[in-house]
């Protein structure tokens, strides 16, 4: 799950990290005057959307007086923010934050990520804050400081001090930094995160402050994270949310061929095969290993709700999931929704003969294929034909 800035900062604050005084989170301009009262001027007004690069795109503005604050809030609230991370369509800004703007003397970068190879969290820091870390890592890898973290112990004092000295912090700030770095690692460990990032961590006349925050959490650990469970899912589209409710792994894409596949790897492989055959997939969909007839029906209905879909390709390699069950699920779905686009089905594996028989005897017009490549080509042709 991805958290927006203010949610991330709430987690930071819960572990004692210094964040700027907040005036409020606004969904409506009417709330602005009271927000301006709660935090002192000058203010910074920021769009609360799931994307980096907000500043350059006009989603972050400084305001010295209430008039400027009103103009800034009015400009940002409701705007469509297009940044390199949002894609062409951008994101509509529905919430803004109002914070006291700190005087920045120096900006640094601090994050904790999961190092897959070392199988442990790692703290990443750089004296060059504000910049995108991927770019920095690419252009000047020597400017990046790394410290592995024992997931059982958290960050130890001496490890945090090592980072502080490598950052070249003045001696009077080292103690404060140690607390922040250890606190950030606690956020990572206690909330089951896969990323926590402070960019920039600012040195101000009043000490160090986390000016921005980004958090990504591990969906697999939500069962033990009541605080995170209570937060809204801001990333998924309505169709993706509906799929999730039925335990279906679905991600909407831009193409025209709807896919229903069992298994995440085969689902990706099927998308790739469609692309090789000259088409583009409309979605990623894994019905899952424990799929039953009802879930297949739900999955099929979700695919057909996408208006971009001009043909549907079902690719099932039956293992635990049996082909006849899949066939029955498809036929059940077709009783509920009218199929207006061509349907290509490729079944292989457990009970494949029974599955094919069910489809053939159903009287429904289905294009069948034995091999994936043949199926992909037929789906691409069918999508072109139905356009």
């Amino acid at each position, binding site marked *: 799950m991805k958290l927006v800035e203010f949610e991330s900062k709430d987690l930071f604050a819960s572990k004692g990290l210094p964040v700027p005084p907040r005036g409020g989170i606004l969904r409506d301009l009417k709330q602005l005057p009271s927000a301006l009262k709660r935090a002192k001027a000058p203010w910074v007004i920021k769009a609360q959307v799931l994307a980096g690069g907000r500043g350059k795109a006009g989603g972050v503005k400084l305001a010295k007086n209430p008039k400027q604050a009103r103009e800034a809030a009015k400009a940002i609230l409701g705007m469509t923010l297009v940044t390199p*991370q949002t894609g062409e369509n951008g994101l509509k800004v529905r919430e803004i934050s109002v914070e006291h703007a700190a005087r920045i003397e120096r900006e640094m970068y601090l994050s904790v990520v999961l190092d*897959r190879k070392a199988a442990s969290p790692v703290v990443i820091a750089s004296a060059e804050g504000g910049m995108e870390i991927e770019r920095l890592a690419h252009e000047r890898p020597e400017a990046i400081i790394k410290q592995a973290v024992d997931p059982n112990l958290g960050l130890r004092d001496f490890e945090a001090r090592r980072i502080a000295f490598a950052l070249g912090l003045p001696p009077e700030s080292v103690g404060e930094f140690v607390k922040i770095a250890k606190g950030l690692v606690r956020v990572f460990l206690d909330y089951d995160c896969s990323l926590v990032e402070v960019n920039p961590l600012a040195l101000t006349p009043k000490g160090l402050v986390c000016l921005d925050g980004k958090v990504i959490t591990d*969906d697999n650990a939500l069962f033990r994270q009541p605080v995170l469970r209570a937060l809204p899912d801001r990333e998924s589209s309505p169709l993706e949310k509906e799929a999730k409710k039925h335990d279906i792994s679905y991600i909407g894409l831009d193409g025209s061929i709807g896919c229903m596949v069992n298994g995440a*790897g085969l689902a990706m*492989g099927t998308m790739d095969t469609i692309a090789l055959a000259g088409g583009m997939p409309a979605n990623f969909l894994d019905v899952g*290993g424990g799929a039953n007839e009802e879930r297949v029906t739900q999955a099929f209905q979700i695919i057909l709700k996408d208006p971009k879909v001009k043909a549907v390709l079902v690719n099932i*390699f039956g293992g635990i999931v049996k082909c006849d069950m899949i066939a029955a699920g498809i036929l059940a779905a077709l009783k509920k929704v009218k199929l207006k686009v061509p349907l290509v089905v490729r079944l292989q594996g457990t009970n494949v003969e029974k599955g094919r028989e069910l489809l053939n005897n159903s009287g429904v017009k289905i294009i069948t294929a034995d091999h994936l*490549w043949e199926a992909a080509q037929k789906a691409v042709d069918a999508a072109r034909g139905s356009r």
Partner: protein
Amino acid sequence: MSILLSKDSKVIVQGFTGSAGSFHAKQCIDYGSPIVGGVTPGRGGTTHLERPVFSTVSDAVRATGADTSLIFVPAPFAADGILEAVDAGISLIITITEGIPVLDMARVKKAIESANRCGRQVRMVGPNCPGVITPGECKAGIMPGYIHKPGPIGIVSRSGTLTYEAVHQLTQAGLGQSTVVGIGGDPIAGSSHAEILALFEKDPQTTAVVMIGEIGGAGEEEAARYARDHMTKPVFGFVAGRTAPPGRRMGHAGAIVEGGSGTHAGKIKALKDCGVTVVDNLSEIGSTVAAFLKKNAKEVAA
């Protein structure tokens, strides 16, 4: 010969009497796998699928001499189950469970590393994987047994059904498998592609290896370098996720392009640069391997 599993393995099932454990343990037994018992806390002393049930893994190891554990314990408790297996002296732990928190796996990995530093030889495969099968001898996992046949090709893969697809194609092309290893789709895996490649390189039965990867992480790149530096046997690679958008998790927790790393293009380039034969079209895995081996055989004969 084969790797990891053979007819001489002694396998117990953790989560034996649960619905997934029961169903798949029965399939494994029907395949002829040496399943010697199972563990469900509180069910010790009973019998299930004509095999003894124990309340703890150490009881099971003591009574059966088991060396391998197949884990179906539900995700919130799976890490504890794995640690129990390590503690009880199990040397091969195959975890099927999907959805284990990543930090739990980080802690499990630390425990396995420290056991191995103390002279143990513990290997974990998975989690979130279909398991391991040595065709004709031992199936410890959830894969459909009948699509496999014994033979010379080793397979290592991050995905379940994608592996079945590859196995099916190979079997259709007349090529059997030495061992098929699903390392799983999670960000932290017990075994990496490179580690399994190393086992296949040493195995006399295996003459070629098919490696199936997907976007996310750097395991395929590491394996490619391993193949270049340490392998004499031909390696074939397929990587899923060419059309996956960045920043989105494609079903598997580990299948995500983050901050420009773990991309499909980067992996394909690494594989090619290291001399791995890349298969672009998923439908051509079987035919590519068959054609290569046929050509090789001719060259050897000539």
